[in-house]
């Protein structure tokens, strides 16, 4: 059994354990959930330690027959890209559990159910990044909608049922288009090399360009909904406003990454020719996302909505990096996925604490927080700085790599993208000025600062933002060989640097 499978089973085991704990004992349920996620993190750490960074092949491979008559296998394996994303997920889950210790108490169901859903989700998050069988990927991709649906609908705020429904319908619609494309490629494989869903084998197929374009779109639309790209983004702000902070972190930090990850793993690997055909269109959409997200973020009056729109802008950057079709851009995009997970995580945590203390999510209701709650204010400040990609924080490295990687091939797009950085400064600084500085808004005088549990939970995230800001090498070492492999397979070489005159 591969260590990846162990990593998938651990949270599931925890969920089963939770199921037998009596409903009344919420405290025990929380502790079991936290312990499970910490053990999972430890195992993920062991896996990272064992990972051979210079080996660009899939590692920790395991393959068992699942549905033999369709040639479907339970097949997992990870490369550097999957590794860093799994690690990010493994870090974020215990953070979410610890930070949102009381989050589950206002839900429709007991705390126990909340943590069962979170742990099931963690199993699926590992599985979705590790799957090397397209069918297995699809099954997890769709099945993971269900726990999120209940997390938003059962534990969220405001119009939570409607938000959960919107989220699920959008995702399901995309997923079903992808299903049609998956069936298509499966049938083509059946005609050429025999029925299989194995990713490596499927990427050796020769598909005529018209079919390739359709299949590519089937996959791409699903992923563009997931990692919301303009104009398929409208579900995200609604979901982020209604979900609990913890759910939002997992949703935007990890689940949406499945979309961008899928673009790399499936869109480019399976349909390299179609990917090149659609690159101009996708780059334009990415640029629109960057600018549109940024402009709408500036106009937001609601703090979670603001974070959601900044994310749309950031996903624009990630998609731009992926479809720049340079190994630098791709590495940058992958690094961006990880950094965005942490920086958005920190933002949602801080915003969540602000909202739960002030009982309001309107930005106007905050003000002068840095005097009343200095630690909370500094956390929000640092997270905000990371969101605007301040040098010294990890987002800067990835944003820089994306733009450099894009510039070598599409200079104009890179220049447009750069304006996104300016706008980012604007939307972050405005909200920081309004909520942290200035006179203390009436009603905020008695807000409590972070307690020890909250400090402990956010500390690792902030630490990672700083560490990877100065020293991104370990992540890049893992990512670079994998992104070279992807680009080599797609048949593109990095443009030679132009000599300066």
């Amino acid at each position, binding site marked *: 059994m591969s260590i990846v499978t162990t990593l998938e089973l651990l949270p599931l085991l925890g969920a089963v354990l939770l199921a037998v704990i009596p409903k009344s004992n919420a405290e025990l349920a929380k502790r079991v959930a936290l312990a499970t996620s910490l053990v999972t993190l430890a195992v993920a750490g062991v896996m990272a330690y064992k990972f051979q960074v210079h080996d660009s092949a899939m590692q920790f491979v395991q393959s068992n027959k*699942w*549905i*033999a*008559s*369709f040639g479907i296998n339970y097949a997992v394996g990870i490369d550097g890209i999957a590794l860093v994303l799994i690690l990010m997920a493994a870090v974020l889950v215990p953070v979410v559990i610890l930070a949102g210790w009381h989050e589950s108490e206002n839900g*429709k169901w007991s705390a126990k159910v909340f943590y069962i859903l979170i742990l099931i989700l963690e199993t699926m998050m590992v599985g979705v990044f590790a799957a090397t069988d397209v069918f297995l990927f*699809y*099954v*997890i991709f*769709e*099945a993971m*909608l*269900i726990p999120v649906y*209940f997390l938003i*609908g*059962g534990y969220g705020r405001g119009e*939570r*049922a409607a938000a*959960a*429904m919107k989220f*699920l*319908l959008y995702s*399901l*619609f995309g997923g*079903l*288009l992808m*299903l*049609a494309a998956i*069936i*298509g490629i*499966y*049938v083509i494989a*059946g005609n050429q090399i025999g029925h299989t869903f194995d990713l490596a084998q499927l990427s050796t197929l020769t598909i005529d360009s018209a079919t390739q374009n359709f299949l590519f779109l089937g996959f791409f639309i699903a992923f563009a909904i997931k990692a919301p790209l303009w104009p398929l983004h409208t579900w995200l702000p609604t979901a982020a406003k209604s979900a609990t902070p913890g759910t939002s972190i997992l949703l935007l930090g990890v689940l949406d990454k499945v979309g961008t990850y899928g673009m790399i793993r499936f869109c480019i690997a399976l349909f390299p020719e179609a990917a090149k055909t659609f690159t101009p269109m996708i780059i334009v959409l990415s640029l629109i996302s960057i600018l549109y997200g940024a402009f709408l973020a500036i106009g937001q009056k609601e703090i979670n909505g603001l974070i959601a729109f900044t994310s749309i802008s950031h996903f624009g950057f990630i998609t731009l990096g992926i479809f720049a079709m340079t190994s630098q851009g791709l590495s940058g995009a992958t690094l961006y996925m990880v950094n965005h997970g942490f920086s958005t995580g920190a933002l949602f945590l801080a915003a969540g604490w602000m909202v739960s203390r002030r009982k309001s999510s309107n930005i106007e209701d905050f003000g002068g927080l840095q005097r009343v709650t200095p630690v909370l204010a500094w956390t929000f400040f640092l997270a905000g700085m990371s969101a605007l990609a301040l040098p010294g924080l990890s987002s800067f490295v990835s944003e820089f790599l994306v733009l450099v990687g894009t510039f070598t091939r599409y200079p104009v797009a890179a220049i447009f993208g750069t304006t996104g950085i300016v706008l980012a400064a604007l939307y972050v600084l405005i909200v920081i000025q309004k909520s942290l500085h200035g006179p203390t808004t009436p009603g905020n005088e008695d807000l409590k600062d972070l307690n020890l549990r909250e400090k402990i939970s956010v500390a690792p995230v902030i630490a990672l933002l700083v560490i990877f800001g100065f020293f991104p090498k370990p992540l890049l070492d893992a990512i670079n060989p994998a992104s070279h492999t992807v680009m080599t397979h797609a048949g593109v070489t990095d443009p030679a640097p132009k000599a300066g005159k």
Partner: protein
Amino acid sequence: MFSAPVLNYSLLAPILIVLGGALLGVLVEAFLGKTIRATAQLGISLGSLVLAFVQIIRIHSERSLSAAVNSVAIDGASIFFQGTVLVLAFIGILFIADQDNFAAQASAIPGSEEERSAIQTGKQQTEIFPLTLFAVSGMMLFPMATDLITLFVALEVLSLPLYLMAGLSRRRRLLSQEAALKYFLLGAFSSAFFLFGSAFLYGYSGSLSLTGIANAISAGNGNDIFLLIGIAFLSVGLLFKVGAVPFHSWTPDVYQGAPTPITGFMAACTKVAAFGATLRIFYVGLSAAQWEWKPIITTISILTMAVGAIAAIAQRDVKRALAFSSIAHAGFLLTGVIALNKAGLQASLFYVVAYGFTTLGAFGIVTLVRDSAGEVTDLNRWVGLGKKSPLIAGTFVLFLISFAGIPLTSGFIGKFSLFNAAYESGNILVVVVGVLSSAVAAFFYLRIVVMLFFTEPTSDSVTVVIPSVMTRIAITVCAVVTIVLGVYPSLLLNTAQTFANFLA
């Protein structure tokens, strides 16, 4: 000279056992006292279904076309369909066993003194059991029949008891009787169409057997107008039974009016039998003329998927909603007919089993939601059921998720294999419409989930009754099958692969 027909009794035994059980049931109804009658009927029904299934297993590797004078085929598909009907009917009987749902005396006029006294004295008639067995025998014969006359006889044998059973509801009897009448009239029409089509096919080919028709089509010297008229009318008869658009309008009314256990039985078993026969007719008899009928059936399949999914959204009654969902599923199953390949047959076999269990389970849960006047099928009154009875509501959601085709349920694997077969046969349009209408249908299923779980319950007298042991067993089996076939479908897929063949 007239020579006596040669019958291979061991191959025909499954049907004969069920028919025997039905006849025994009629005698029991006539002669046994009311105290033990219900128990005896239940025992006979379940017993004969089990016996018939055992016999099916014993003959499962036999292949023969001459078991009954060349009019039935014992082949993989017919064995599979017969077995499926038996298993689903077994579960269906477990729901029917809850006698509370049926009119005490069906012949009494609704609201009459006679009816009241029958209820007061506890004179519960139990003719529902033999009727079910008669219907089951027709359902077993329908998919194995290889000539048009036998097909017609089987169609009538399965339909006539169903017309009666649809009118047996204890509560809202007028609605139930209206449904029965509507079903009967439209059913009679469709039978006439079927017979008319058969006549034309006979006129075209000079043969009643499917193989004879297939040979005549390949030879191609017949009058093509006769062939086209024959195919058209035969198809109308079949499409009526499976509930495909535009021959679906009876479905919501009958599903709503019939007693809920009967609705479940009808929805699951009739669909199995009707698709069994449809597949055989089109695969064996008419495949050589596929260019004639494929465009039409493709259009009907697309329409059925779309109309079923869209119309379901507007429904306010859970039984009507499930009826439209069953229409949409008929559309999905038709893609297996169009595929005309082994993958299509295999997928259809899997799908009918998966769909049958899920449907029975879903209707089984509908029987449990009641107020003082009986079942509550108004969806608005189901609001907040998740709070009152999380387990029942959760199980219902499981069935809905399977209908919607979300992974890790049997419905997903079924849809996947059907669409795969359709794609393989080159019908990409059907696949695209299929996935899109799945998305529409998902909206409708989710709306119910929202009602059950995310809306605050109103102060209403709706309760979930404690299910009887048999109902509980039946629902549990359905739920387990729905999950197991979703997580480990190889169990059934391999069987379906083995049995996916027609003898011709």
